[in-house]
């Protein structure tokens, strides 16, 4: 009779597995949605701890929703309605370049525009778009993560792209 064995998450092996499966995604989701300012790392930890504390009441199949909902709420509680600014990471190797100063200047300008444009997206668009373009997540994977349909994901991504291009090309 395995009736009672699996309808809760109070099992350490199971918990570790859930962590492995969802922790990074949750972190990225929070980051892309809310930015870095309110410490997405912490919220991820808090969400998992809350899961453990409530392990009796959460079925494994509901664990992911639980984590995302809790983390999201933790963020919302912490956030004022500020504009989200994602950090622009300078990953280009500076040592070796054969670009002209004008090119570099243009590059920098472009980045700044892009940064602004990303911040201007709706949260829904931004999350879906960046998970897809930066993390390489498939539409289906994103749909599962966010508990929405694949069609909705497609719409958000496409909408984000259009909006970004519009914002960037506006001088």
């Amino acid at each position: 009779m395995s009736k009672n064995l699996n309808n809760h998450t109070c099992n350490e092996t199971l918990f570790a597995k859930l962590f492995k499966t969802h922790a990074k995604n949750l972190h990225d989701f929070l980051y892309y949605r809310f930015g870095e300012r309110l410490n997405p790392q912490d919220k991820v930890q808090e969400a998992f701890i809350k899961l453990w504390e409530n392990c009796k009441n959460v079925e494994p199949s509901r664990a992911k929703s639980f984590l995302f909902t809790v983390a999201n709420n933790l963020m919302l509680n912490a956030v004022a309605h500020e504009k989200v600014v994602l950090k622009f990471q300078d990953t280009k190797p500076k040592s070796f370049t054969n670009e002209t100063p004008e090119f570099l200047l243009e590059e920098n300008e472009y980045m700044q525009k892009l940064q602004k444009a990303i911040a201007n997206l709706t949260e829904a668009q931004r999350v879906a778009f960046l998970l897809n373009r930066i993390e390489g997540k498939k539409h289906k994977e994103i749909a599962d993560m966010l508990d929405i349909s694949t069609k909705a994901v497609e719409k958000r991504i496409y909408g984000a792209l259009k909006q970004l291009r519009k914002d960037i090309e506006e001088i």
Partner: protein
Amino acid sequence: MTKDELIQKWLQDNLNPQELEAFKALEDYDALMKLSEGLKHFKAPEFNEQDTFELVSKTMSQKSAQKPKPSWLKPVLRIAAILAIFFSVYYYTTTLTTDISTLTAEKTTITLPDHSEVTLNAKSQISYKKKQWKDTRKLTLEGEAYFKVEKGSKFSVETSSGTITVLGTQFLVENRSDIFEVVCYECTVKVTSSIAERILKPGDHFLVLDGKLIAKEKEEAMAPAWLQNESVFESMPYKYVLNELKRQYQIRLDAQNINSNMLFTGRFVHNDLNLALKAITIPLNIEYTTNNDLIVLHDK
């Protein structure tokens, strides 16, 4: 295929070789590539899964150490509390009254809270309130008891036939079905009964048999004989003698064939039935036969 459709498919990573060529040929292609490149710089900071998991595990074990309260604890505590209340109430109410009784052939001496002593003869019972003893020295008696009372406040013994009030003395009270007797050994005792009220001085003897007050001679002894395991009688109707015999020995007596109102003067021991029987039958010309368990008395 329209531009939009191509772009959609590109977004879905769903271009077959032909479509890919068509896509690359779009005028938007460069802008889209530049955009894709630029986006890479906005990648989320690295998430260290291992380290974060260790942090979470540590916090989890800290939290469990703090709160090991399992869900069954509350109901158990509730039950324990109810039981505790129940038992304390029960204990309190039952310790209000102390009852001490003796069975057939049993005697016992008890010490009261004020160090007064009571010795019970067989088949007797006393009751008193231990907690109130300091203020009120009052007890109830059924049967026969010898008292040695410490000097102090008023000491009273209540029986169904009357109350004896005492001041620091030694005295005897016997109250059985039709005999009520008080003997004062070293005392000043007031006896109040439905028949009479007397103040007894040392050696005085108050006796009511079948509702009749009987005059008695002064008691010579210092204490009742049954304290020494012997019953002594003086002109006592035989039936009382037999009753006492039955209390000191586990026997069944048939006395139908004799006159149990005869007066008997004598004694019998408590530790030898045959001797006792002889002692109470020979002087009155009575014989007895043992029929299984039953002792039948008859005239010679």
